[in-house]
């Protein structure tokens, strides 16, 4: 630290007339626009509750990345992220059940082993049962099975893939604990869940249009299938969050390793995301199909 240079800077700013004053009315708004006031949530207990975390996910991801690296808070944050994810995915299940009920169709699932034995068959079909009301899925339990399969499947798949993420991190030379891996995984899950809740109203409008207007069957099935894969579309934001989080962990690498290990780590994280994207739909489908009977 050079006190003389700091003193020089201080004097430089004593007389601001030395620099051209920017006229905010001249159209050069960018340089004098006030940075949108992101509320300084700080690391208080209030900011760490579930609502505070959702705000941080939406408004200040950089602060969230710093927060999850504090070892003393990880034990508190992991269940909160899980609760955000669980509630969001349950909300998604409920919304999808409402869309299917409004469209008077319900997906029928067929066992994977039968599909593999007879490739000409199908895994899933939308059967219109001609229900009088849209409450039938709730009365016969189909809606709860759908909600359970998605809420549990999406999160449990993270747990199944967790050891591989830890090993990938070790392979890349990142110095991290299992808790670090868990917190990054559940954080990215929560980010994807919040994104899913965000895009759900858009899809719900599309789904209701299917219910109200006489869409061709192929178009109707396409829209309904889009709804079933919506968590994976929203999950791209979770993948991006995981990628960012692990990229930040490269500061734990030694300086000489970092240049050639950083790229390797990022590729491993993307590989893990690909593996997760394969395992999750299989798990959800299997759970749902077994519950349906």
């Amino acid at each position, binding site marked *: *630290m*050079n006190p003389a*240079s*700091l003193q020089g*800077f201080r004097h*430089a*700013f004593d007389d*601001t007339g030395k*620099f*051209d*004053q*920017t006229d905010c009315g001249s159209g050069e708004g*960018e*340089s*004098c626009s006030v*940075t949108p006031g992101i509320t*300084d949530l700080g*690391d208080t207990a209030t900011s760490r509750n579930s609502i505070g975390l959702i705000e941080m996910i939406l408004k200040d991801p*950089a*602060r969230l990345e*710093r927060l999850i690296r*504090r*070892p*003393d808070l*990880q*034990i*508190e944050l*992991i*269940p*909160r992220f*899980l*609760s955000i994810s*669980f509630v969001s995915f349950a909300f998604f299940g409920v919304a999808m059940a409402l869309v299917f009920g409004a469209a008077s169709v319900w997906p029928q699932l067929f066992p994977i082993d039968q599909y593999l034995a007879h490739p000409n068959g199908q895994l899933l079909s939308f059967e219109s049962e001609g229900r009088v009301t849209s409450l039938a899925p709730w009365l016969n339990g189909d809606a709860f099975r759908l909600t359970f399969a998605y809420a*549990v499947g999406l*999160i*449990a798949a*993270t*747990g*199944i893939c*967790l050891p591989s993420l830890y090993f990938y991190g070790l392979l890349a030379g990142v110095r991290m*604990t*299992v*808790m670090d891996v*868990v917190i990054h*995984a*559940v954080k990215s899950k929560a980010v994807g869940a919040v994104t899913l809740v965000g895009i759900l109203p858009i899809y719900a409008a599309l789904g209701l249009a299917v219910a109200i207007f006489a869409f061709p069957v192929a178009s109707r099935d396409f829209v309904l299938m889009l709804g079933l894969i919506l968590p994976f579309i929203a999950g791209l934001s979770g993948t991006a969050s995981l990628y960012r989080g692990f990229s930040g962990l490269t*500061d*734990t690498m030694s*300086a000489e390793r970092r240049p050639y290990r950083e790229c390797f780590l990022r590729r491993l994280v993307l590989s893990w995301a690909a593996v997760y994207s394969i395992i999750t739909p299989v798990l959800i489908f*299997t759970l749902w199909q*077994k519950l349906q009977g």
Partner: protein
Amino acid sequence: MGFSVTVFFYLLIGLPVAVALWLNDRSISDGRLFRCLTAPLFWPLYIPLLFASPAMSPQSIMKVDSKIRSSDEMSSMITKVEAELDTALKSLDGWSENALADERSRISELRIAWRHQADSIRQLDRLLLESSAPTPSQSSDPALASMGATSESDQVVPKSVIPHEESRSQNLQKLKRVRRQLYEDLMATLAWVRELVTMIHLAKYTGAPASRAVELVQQIAAAVEGLSKVNQPAA
């Protein structure tokens, strides 16, 4: 192995994890209930919580001595300074993007260096707490020490031990001075960076040339050299 058998074994592992979580967390809260209800389903995510070091649990943090509690203030200060630094560096976009290009790695090193220094201070705090003399009056009163008696137990300390105790006490005093110096250096560096951060904002909004941003970012990055000298042992 069929699906139902898989689910059976999965839940068989999950239920003890749920019980362990219930017993491990003595707080009465909705969070505790949520953790225990979801543990059978998501136990792979909860097992690391069970094996986490007791020192990391929120309850154990509350029991930390005030000296170590002040070290958590270091974490808060570092987090705050990093947040301000991030904001300032983001504000370079559209004004002086190149200022950061050459200094990015040094600024990353700076973040590591002040965290490393904070860890060193915490380690010294723990060491000093563990090593602190049981009777402060003994170390401060040479007359009492020369009599070979303690003030608490009236046990007679052999005179051959006294010089070693005095030397030990002096070493502890030196450690305290080292700790104080490390702390002051860390706080000075953080304050230095905070001041430079405000200068970046001031430069931007007063229409300073982009070269000013380059100089300020270089000054921030140069702070890592001061911390690196502190962290390296003397040759």
